[in-house]
């Protein structure tokens, strides 16, 4: 490719790393150490390994399709820049998810992305729609109906704190373990469980208040 011997050496290392990882040997720590020495192919392998989960975190928090990949790329750029400071005391994924969560919250703050104001009432039709979904216990139906219902749930979630909403969506929709969520947010596992449970109840209360309004409370 180039005539710079250093680069050749670097890509040779990368090939070695990649083949070792196929054999299941090069773990993230090896790759991190290589990346800290400036081997960009090692960093590239880290990107490849973790992109799916980073995108899952980003899309769980942002919930807006068009910016997800852009923010995820920015996350990796930041990881690249600060990898010298990563001391390997936690798993690379934990460190990376922390950067991801902060980047997403920053993004939400800067863009003030609260497209679905929770002040606005749900329409009669929306109320009927979501009530029907909840009481039927059946699937949501076609993709269009699902999307409509998701929009309503987004509204019901919008008065939870960023942290509570993040926990709930990452756990329930993106399949993250409570241990992983605790690592991201710097909380112990029991705290995550308790707060998750309370966040669930809060969402249900919002549902009762906004959808169940007009119905007689039992």
């Amino acid at each position, binding site marked *: 490719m180039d005539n710079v011997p250093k680069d050749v050496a670097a890509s040779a290392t990368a090939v070695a790393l990649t083949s070792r990882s196929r054999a299941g040997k090069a773990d993230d720590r090896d790759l991190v150490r290589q990346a800290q020495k400036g081997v960009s192919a090692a960093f590239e392998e880290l990107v490849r390994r973790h*992109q799916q989960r980073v995108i899952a975190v980003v*899309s*769980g928090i942002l919930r807006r399709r068009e910016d997800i990949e852009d923010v995820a790329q920015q996350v*990796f750029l*930041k990881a690249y820049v600060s990898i010298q400071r990563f001391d390997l005391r936690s798993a690379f994924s934990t460190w990376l998810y922390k950067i991801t969560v902060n980047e997403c919250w920053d993004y939400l703050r800067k863009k003030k992305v609260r497209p679905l104001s929770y002040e606005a009432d749900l329409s009669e039709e929306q109320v009927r729609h979501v009530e029907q979904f909840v009481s039927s216990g059946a699937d949501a139906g076609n993709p269009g109906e699902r999307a409509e219902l998701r929009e309503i749930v987004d509204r019901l979630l919008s008065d939870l704190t960023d942290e509570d909403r993040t926990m709930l969506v990452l756990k329930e929709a993106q399949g993250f373990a409570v241990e992983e969520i605790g690592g991201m947010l710097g909380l112990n596992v029991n705290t995550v469980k308790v707060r998750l*449970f309370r966040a669930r109840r809060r969402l249900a209360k919002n549902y009762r208040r906004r959808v169940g309004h007009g119905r007689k409370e039992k």
Partner: protein
Amino acid sequence: MSEQNMNGCEKFESLLEDYLSGDLPRQDAERLASHLNACGDCRQALEEARLSSRLVGLFDRAEEPGPSFTRLVMARVSAAELWLQQQKNFWRPLEALAWRLAFSAALVLVFLFAYEIKASNPEVVPQASGVLVQRADTFVTPAYNSPTNTDEVLMAIAERDHERQ
């Protein structure tokens, strides 16, 4: 946050969360079951939590990243490195000039200060080194722990390169 008092049921919240996720250890299952039998509040809480699971379950799992995702990330990385290299090359002569100017200014100040002190009170030892340190502080690069925008990212790369040298 906790607007309602759950009368000592707080300790069951994490068990209920485990139960919802299907992670409840067997030894806790009986304890929870007998509490649920006796406690209407917790039964209601569990119903609410279930309702939420159904609602949030409407969100789909994230899609796979696009096929060019890795390439795009690495392109950003190279672009940032390249930009920085260009900045460095552009500023290097000016940087040298700035340092020279700063040094001269500091030197002039030292002389003026020393002269002033000597003129007013010949006994006092001039604090010339203090002045030099103050001048130099102006050029210390601040440490960036967590960059929050592209400019800061670039600054952080610059700082890191500086550390490597």
